[in-house]
């Protein structure tokens, strides 16, 4: 078999396995977990770990599967289709930076480690105002998704990465519910005992952050595609004026435009994944991520908003599943940087010169 065919077989298998763990058609589990703490199902998390998902990107020598961003994005996209709340993107982010026993426990599903990297709203880059001295961390980290399910946090500091147990003294967590039924945690660390994670360089953290941002774009892609499919179904089913409403040209044209935005998002995400999977200088790699995240943020909000409109009154009820997709987009579109932030970063990374 050719390399390309091998790869596409890989991708197909990954998508299938994702569908087996979290069937996208059924959102009852997602609804049941809404707005409770910890907001995830630990058994499902363990199953994900058993499938090797948090370590998908790690070399086999480190207990991973040695696959690329293309594969990870395909997996995460499937989770997006099913609005899966378990924090795989964050877990994989942590796994990229941990080593040894801490990594093993994470990959085995025994401990959930979530990165706490953000110190201001809207950040793309890691905040490093927190301080790590003599094995103790002091600082404040914002917007940690699903923080209440963490056994430990991987904290960026001025002095490198630190691993802090959630139940350690000096650790306090403030929780704010999010529209998707999950939550953000504000993590306050007051001289909390921590373990330095020496192996990870700042560059490695930056790369892991970019991978997480791209994975978010892939998750949004899956979610918007699914919400669009639900909407097309509705347009074919719902009748008004004696015809299915999907036969009305104005709605057809709007659907066509949404389809184009989804296709652009897919092309952008897959192109960024391919860029990260190939060797190359740092700026175009980060720029590719920004391009994909900007597109995914904008397109996912457009598609899910329009999905509500195209569903009409039923779309405005909480009991219609379509609203769950809008809520998810509201939470993820700006996470790891809004469209505007990523557009600006793209322009900074790849300034236009007079190359004509």
């Amino acid at each position, binding site marked *: 078999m050719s390399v390309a065919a091998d790869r596409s077989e890989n991708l197909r298998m990954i998508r299938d396995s994702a569908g087996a763990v979290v069937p996208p058609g059924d959102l009852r589990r997602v609804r049941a977990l809404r*707005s409770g703490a910890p907001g995830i199902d630990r058994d499902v998390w363990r199953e994900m770990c058993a499938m090797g998902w948090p370590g998908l990107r790690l070399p086999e020598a480190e207990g991973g599967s040695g696959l690329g961003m293309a594969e990870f994005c395909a997996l995460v996209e499937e989770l997006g289709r099913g609005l899966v709340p378990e924090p795989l993107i964050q877990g994989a982010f942590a796994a990229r930076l941990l080593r040894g026993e801490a990594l093993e426990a994470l990959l085995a599903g025994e401990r959930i480690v979530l990165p706490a990297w953000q110190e201001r*709203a809207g950040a793309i880059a890691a905040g490093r105002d927190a301080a790590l001295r003599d094995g103790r961390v002091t600082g404040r980290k914002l917007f940690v998704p699903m923080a209440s399910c963490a056994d430990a946090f991987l904290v960026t500091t001025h002095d490198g990465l630190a691993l802090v147990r959630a139940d350690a003294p000096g650790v306090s967590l403030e929780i704010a519910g*999010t*529209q998707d039924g999950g939550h953000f945690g504000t993590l306050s660390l007051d001289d909390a005992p921590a373990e330095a994670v020496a192996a990870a360089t700042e560059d490695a953290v930056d790369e892991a952050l970019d991978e997480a941002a791209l994975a978010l774009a892939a998750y949004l892609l899956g979610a918007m595609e699914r919400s669009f499919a639900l909407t097309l179904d509705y347009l074919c089913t719902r009748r*008004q004026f004696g015809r299915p409403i999907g036969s009305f040209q104005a709605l057809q044209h709007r659907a066509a435009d949404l389809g184009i935005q989804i296709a652009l998002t897919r092309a952008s995400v897959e192109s960024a994944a391919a860029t990260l999977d190939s060797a190359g200088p740092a700026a175009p790699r980060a720029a590719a991520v920004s391009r994909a995240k900007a597109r995914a943020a904008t397109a996912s909000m457009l598609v899910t908003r329009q999905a509500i409109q195209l569903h009409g*009154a039923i779309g405005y009820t909480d009991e219609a599943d379509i609203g769950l997709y809008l809520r998810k987009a509201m939470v993820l579109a*700006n*996470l790891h940087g809004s469209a505007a932030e990523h557009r600006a970063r793209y322009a900074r990374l790849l300034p236009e010169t007079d190359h004509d």
Partner: protein
Amino acid sequence: MTDLNALDDEDFRLAVRRWLREAYPPELRNPPKRLHWRDNKVWYLKLAEKGWLAPGWPREHGGMGLSAAKQLIMLDEYERHGVARTNDHGIVMLGPLLIRYGTEAQKSRFLPKILSGEHIWCQGYSEPNAGSDLASVATTAVREGEDWVLNGQKTWTTLANDANWIFVLARTDRAAKKQEGISFFLVPMDAPGVTVRPIVNLDLHDEFCEVFFDTVRVPHDNLVGAVNQGWTMAKALLGFERVMIGSPKQSAYALGRLRLLAQRMGGWDDPVFQDRYTGLRLDLADHTSLYETYLEILRRGEMPGADASMLKLHQSELYQRITDTMLEIAAENAGLLEPMEGNRDLNPAGLFLQARPVTIYGGSNEIQRNILARTVLGLPG
């Protein structure tokens, strides 16, 4: 009692303003969601007591008998003060219809109880399969002796869970053309066979309900107007509504919140934001100018035509564009379930969700564009 119509406009405006400052409960100003009867009852009864509940009804029926111009001033002051809507379907919708089409017996039976707050009405028009296509109501009413028997289901019935009466469009002639076989009934919510199921909205509020009619029996006296004239009567009262639904108030409110949010997020001075904000501001200002031209028509006592639907189209989409912008600049706060920092004026996600249905209700914007194109621009059907 002063003759309010005799006051000059400015004095009248000041009188309204003074009364709102005195009498309006401060905690009800600019509520983030539509209030239930339990919350707005206090204000409804204060209005009733002062005799200001029904500005547009003739005095003989207990209304204020205000001119259109004065009503608009009153409304304007209400909007400025952030006065919440009450459970006003009896006042705004049913009252004028009864005054125009009801029998004397119906008027004297129902109007006083609207004014006293004893009857709280809701409007039973939309159905699961009669949303945009409102004329295809499937709820039926069949004559049995002196009674009518209703069967069917209404949906998107605003605040039905507060109401003790509902006015209903029901089909009384299946053979007639869609619009011509519909009649108008008054139904007590406690009649056997009426069930109400609140619908939780995207913004997690139960403003709308489903109302089910299972062999509900009402006497013939509860039919308003002639049999099969329901659609015509319901449509005849839309002129004022068509303008009011395009009021700039939602957008004006949201724009203020957008400014506050931008200031809080630190992006207010960003030139890109400023450019966008100014664009929205100009859209609002031009909308307000357009709205004014329609108010002028109402002030002259005339009824605007179908072209007034432009107002609703533009306002609702502007409101959404403003709240879309809020989400875009709110960073991670765009996904929060509760207002930021416990400050209900910093609530991008909430306002964004509340802005969703405005392009759906009151005739979806798709329907409004059809009407505009065919009725106003004269394009072929």
